[in-house]
């Protein structure tokens, strides 16, 4: 263990005007434990300390230091915490982009109305084609692409898009990855995986709306 620091100055020398306050402060700051400095208000910027501390106080502190022997390193736990405070947080290695962690259970339910072929199941990035009808909980139909007799003149086509890519509301992206070609299902999607708190302004979909879709997956490419 390193030897304790030695007294540099006698009492007379301390009181002398030749010895500037700064030197005493410097010595004490370099050699005293952090808690000691704190108690004697000797922490911080040299200039500031010199402004506020009187010579008499410094002499007292100097003497007390040698009496109590509260030198640096004498209070290990406290030193360690000091060191810990001084440790800079190194740049953490970039967390690898993990899969989106599902916070909680899926926000939709699926009931199969007609089974599919169970073999053609779309993967992320595949193009799927669907007929669908969307209703609100109260039964209002807000959207459909199924041709009715009246709409025949505008040729209706199934909705085609690349699944699993965030192009559609999340409930659809997730549900379609579980369906197979030819399957008809009823999806009930919570607002979090549909249009959320806002709903869709200027439309039939209000805020926090649960959406119900009947979907038929007709093709997988």
């Amino acid at each position, binding site marked *: 263990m390193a030897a304790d620091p030695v007294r540099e100055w006698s009492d007379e020398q301390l009181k002398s005007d030749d010895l500037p306050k700064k030197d005493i402060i410097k010595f004490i700051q370099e050699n005293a434990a952090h808690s000691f400095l704190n108690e004697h*208000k000797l922490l*911080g*910027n040299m200039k*500031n300390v010199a402004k506020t501390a009187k010579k008499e106080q410094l002499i007292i502190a100097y003497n007390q230091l040698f009496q109590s022997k509260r030198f640096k390193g004498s209070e290990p736990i406290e030193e360690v915490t000091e060191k810990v405070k001084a440790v800079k947080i190194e*740049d953490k290695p970039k967390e690898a982009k993990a899969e989106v962690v599902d916070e909680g259970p899926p926000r939709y339910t699926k009931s199969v109305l007609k089974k599919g072929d169970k073999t053609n199941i779309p993967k992320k990035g595949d193009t799927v084609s669907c007929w669908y009808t969307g209703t609100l909980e109260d039964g209002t139909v807000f959207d459909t692409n199924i041709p009715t007799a009246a709409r025949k*003149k505008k*040729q209706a086509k199934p909705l085609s898009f690349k699944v699993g890519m965030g192009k559609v509301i999340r409930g659809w992206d997730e549900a379609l990855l579980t369906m197979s070609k030819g399957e008809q299902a009823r999806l009930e999607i919570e607002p979090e995986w549909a249009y959320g708190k*806002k709903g869709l302004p200027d439309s039939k979909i209000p805020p926090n709306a649960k959406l119900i879709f009947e979907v038929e997956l007709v093709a997988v490419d």
Partner: protein
Amino acid sequence: MALEQLSDVVQRCQALPVDSYTSEDQDVFLISGRTCIEEGNVAQVLSIILDEKNKEVVRYMGWSLLPPLVGILLKKEERNVPQCLAIFNHLIESCSPKELLIGLLENMEHDDPDTIAESVHLLLTPLQKVLMRLGNRKASSLGMTLSSVLDQVTKLPLPRTKEQEEDDVFSVCRSCTDLIVFVRPFVQEVSRTLLKSDELSDSTQKMTIRQRTDEEDELRTELLKFCMKALSRPLLEVHLKEPDTLAVSPLRNFAEDILNILRTIGEPLTALVHRPVLKRKLVPGFLEEEVRYPKESLASLTHLVFVHLLAADAFSYVYSPVFCLRCNMEHICLLLSRTEENMIQKGLELYEKSLLRVDDGTLCADLLEIRTFLTVPKNLVNVMTMCPRHDLRTKGLKIFQLSIDKFDTEAKYKFFQYTLKAISHSGVQGYIIKNIKNQINSALQTGNSNTWFLGIHLLPLLRKVLILPDGPETDLLQYLDRLMESLNLLRYLIIRDKVTENQTGIWTELYKIEDTFTKPLRVGLNMTRAHYEKELQNTMEDKKAKTREEMKVSVSVGDEKLPKMTSQSQIQALHSALHTFDMIESVLVRVEELIDVQETP
């Protein structure tokens, strides 16, 4: 006299085969016929025209009578109109369609709005009849007709207010409505073709689609080009009124009709809106893509669908709001990069609507890797700082903040980083710095802490903010907005973040900040103030000493020097600058005080 000449030439030509009519004959026919019509001998001309024996003559040469006939019909002289109309209609049915087409289109070209509107109204139906007579060879003629008619209609002054639209003084609305009526049978023809090919493929149970003939394809393409052209002019230039402002709006109906035509001819609206984003096979051929799907027209279409909610039933609700935003950014980018105020306004409206569909704090940082997400803010800044219209500048700023609010924390951080680097406008930078302060404030609330506006990422960002760009020589007036916000931010941090907690890291960083920011600022402030005070003194002395003095301050705009500032204005300007320095000083002093207080135990 003319009537005799006409009868003569007709009789003479009766006996001749068509290809032996001399050009002299044709001239005589034309001139005498015209004279008769203009002199009012229309009844006689009518009987000559209707005479069976003259059928060939009429068929070959009759079309040359169109100009005088149209002239009479446009003048609407009660007396002659019925017979002229009879002649006109007969010619439409008998003469060669190609000649008639050219004749009719020529008669539609005018310069004054009244005549344009009247001739469009008069001639569209005959044009339609003539085109139908062309049968399977009508596509290119239809294209030419539609293009000419649209060119004429767009010469008419557009209504700006709802009253102007109601009054329709220049008949723009009527012309647009007429156009839709004109084009309807052709649209239906294309629609039938498409249905047939679908049915055929159903019946054969095969996936092959019956190949459309070139003619059918061409017809569809001409209608597509027409819609695209209309979307650009007049629709991009006109400001549609909402139903609650104007219940019956012919222009809104026109827009809706154009969208419906597109759907009917097999161009689904969602595909058109998404076109710039989806990696679709582009139309082969040089410039074909731009001819058939011009970007400006697609932007206009997107605006109609998203802002005016036209053809809303054509749009699937299944697409995610973020995906819609992504697609729309392409259109927004185009509109905001233009200087025409109506385009800028539509760009802002579309941007706002697209952002409002997305929840706050949900857009992730990955989106900033898409080019438009960086270009659009730059364009928006141009609008905010340079657009002559005050309401557009204000709206631009509001939407700028809205776009920031939609980003999640990481994306906000990266966006602030980007804008501080890429956009040098001091006011905008100041605005961003204010946003940074708000984010730090939010992060300091319990439960909100994040690693972007606290923790390891904050200091690098702060270092970019709490700095004087040119050291003590920085032009304080030029950078004023940025400076004030930076000082405010520093003051906020010192007050809010206790030295013992140091959550933002500001206290450990402070000595560096003093070197890069507060100390040079203090120096610069003193220097600049001294300089300006001396200037002021000199100016005041000069003013006292002499009545006319070589002014040292001069301002030029473009290449013209503005008249020299009077010494009174100079003094005012200098006072104003000094006042600004006082303002900066007061915050700086406060900051320095706070630092001292906190650092003294």
